[in-house]
């Protein structure tokens, strides 16, 4: 143990003024989005009776999808604006919170239907959430199934500075390093928007590298493999070199898998780097510079500040971690969004400095 001062279990007051980088307003259903669709899609969804585009990764009724005391009296998790304000914003004293809607448009098999749902969600979030509370910001949801449509959506919304990030599911139809996705990274760089990868999948493939799991336990715990794959893909295909300003945020990744992953990447790179000569620096150095991670969940033993401090020391980058509650997902009890054991100076950065540095657009509204 080093001589740094570790924070104790932190509660509401500690997070006062913090920037919450991952909250989830719920989409009640397709009916909510119809006013934000064109005539064809309004007609089509109604006539074909299509609804229930909730993500398989977060079934609305599953315990993980909503903490019991955050579950609204009626409707799906996160759908009540007044409740979200009271619990997610007032409850933690949050100054700014970034809305990351998770809904089927981002994973739909139809490119055009996916794009229609994504566009409707973005306009709905802007009109009914961002307009309603100045503390809220949002990610642009895009159909990564069709990179050209994703780019159109980014171009359509980038002028609204309350959109601070591009949101993608952690697993898509291909690994994100493939050149198929490069138009999205080009648009992200052009507009200074970080790309957030959120736990979850398009489920085009089995979510594990060995096949389909039988249980939710397996599916959820194995998510960190997906994040590792995407990081390796972006790294080894040269995306970080090709797009020098691209920033990546891993949302709901669990965080503590990172040190072992970094060590293994560096060790292997030293031996085989000549097959990827565009990876010019040790992978850990590149990842520490370009990748950020939200802090809920943070997978460590309960109430073990020494273990938390060890992980923070091993990650060895004060600027990598971002405060998040993951509201209304059930990751912690009460207001204990910050695990005990984080050095005080690091905690100060996590709560505010790091989010401001990661999302340049946030700085415009607090200056």
């Amino acid at each position: 143990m080093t001589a740094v001062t570790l924070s104790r279990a932190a509660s509401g007051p500690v997070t006062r003024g913090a920037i919450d980088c991952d909250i989830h307003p719920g989409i009640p259903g397709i009916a909510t989005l119809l006013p934000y669709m064109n005539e064809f899609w309004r007609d089509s969804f109604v006539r074909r009776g299509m609804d229930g585009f909730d993500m398989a990764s977060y079934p609305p009724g599953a315990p993980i999808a909503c903490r019991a005391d955050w579950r609204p009296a009626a409707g799906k998790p996160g759908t009540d604006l007044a409740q979200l304000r009271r619990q997610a914003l007032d409850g933690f004293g949050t100054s700014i919170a970034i809305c990351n809607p998770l809904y089927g448009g981002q994973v739909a098999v139809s490119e055009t239907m996916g794009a229609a749902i994504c566009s409707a969600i973005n306009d709905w979030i802007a009109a009914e959430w961002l307009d309603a509370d100045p503390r809220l910001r949002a990610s642009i949801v895009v159909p990564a199934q069709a990179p050209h449509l994703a780019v159109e959506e980014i171009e359509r919304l980038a002028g609204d500075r309350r959109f601070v990030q591009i949101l993608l599911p952690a697993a898509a139809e291909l690994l994100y390093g493939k050149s198929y996705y490069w138009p999205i990274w080009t648009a992200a760089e052009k507009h200074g928007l970080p790309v957030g990868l959120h736990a979850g999948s398009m489920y085009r493939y089995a979510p594990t590298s060995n096949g389909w799991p039988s249980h939710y336990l397996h599916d959820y715990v194995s998510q960190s493999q997906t994040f590792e794959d995407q990081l390796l893909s972006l790294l080894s295909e040269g995306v970080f070199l090709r797009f020098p300003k691209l920033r990546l945020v891993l949302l709901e990744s669990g965080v503590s898998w990172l040190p072992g992953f970094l060590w293994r990447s560096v060790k292997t790179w030293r031996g085989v780097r000549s097959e990827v000569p565009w990876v010019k620096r040790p992978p850990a150095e590149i990842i520490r510079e370009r990748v950020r991670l939200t802090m809920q969940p943070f997978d460590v033993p309960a109430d073990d500040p020494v273990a938390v401090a060890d992980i923070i020391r091993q990650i060895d980058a004060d600027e990598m971690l971002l405060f998040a509650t993951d509201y209304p997902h059930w990751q912690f009890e009460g207001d204990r969004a910050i695990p005990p054991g984080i050095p005080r100076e690091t905690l100060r950065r996590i709560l505010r400095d790091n989010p401001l540095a990661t999302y340049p657009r946030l700085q415009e509204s607090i200056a």
Partner: protein
Amino acid sequence: MSKHVVAAVADLPPGSRKLVMVKGRPIAVFNIGGDFFGLMNRCPHQGGDLCAGELTGLVTADRPGEYRMSRPGEIIRCPWHGWEFDVRTGQSWCEPGRIRTKQYPVEVASGDALVKGPYIAETIPVAVEEEYVVVEV
């Protein structure tokens, strides 16, 4: 420091290398186009036998998907885990500032000069009219 005769130049032509023992140290001696270099024959990673590694060029790129080969025969790749070292400096490619193998000065001297000393040639017979590779340890 003392100077040790380790080979006749004629026995170590360009592109070749030789493992020698000097004062109990294993040293890999390389001839790159007529220039001679000596490296401690221990990979700083886990002690692999560098002299037994693959002698190759430097692969670099300015953008993804591009492969550029330069400096043929100037990079030695450890046979154990593939770490690359610059034969001219002993520096690793991956972390040149931190990871390197010790370099020993190597020079070429004529047999004529060697006879006058102060060179040590325990195992190499020296002829006045030949040239020799000399390692300083």
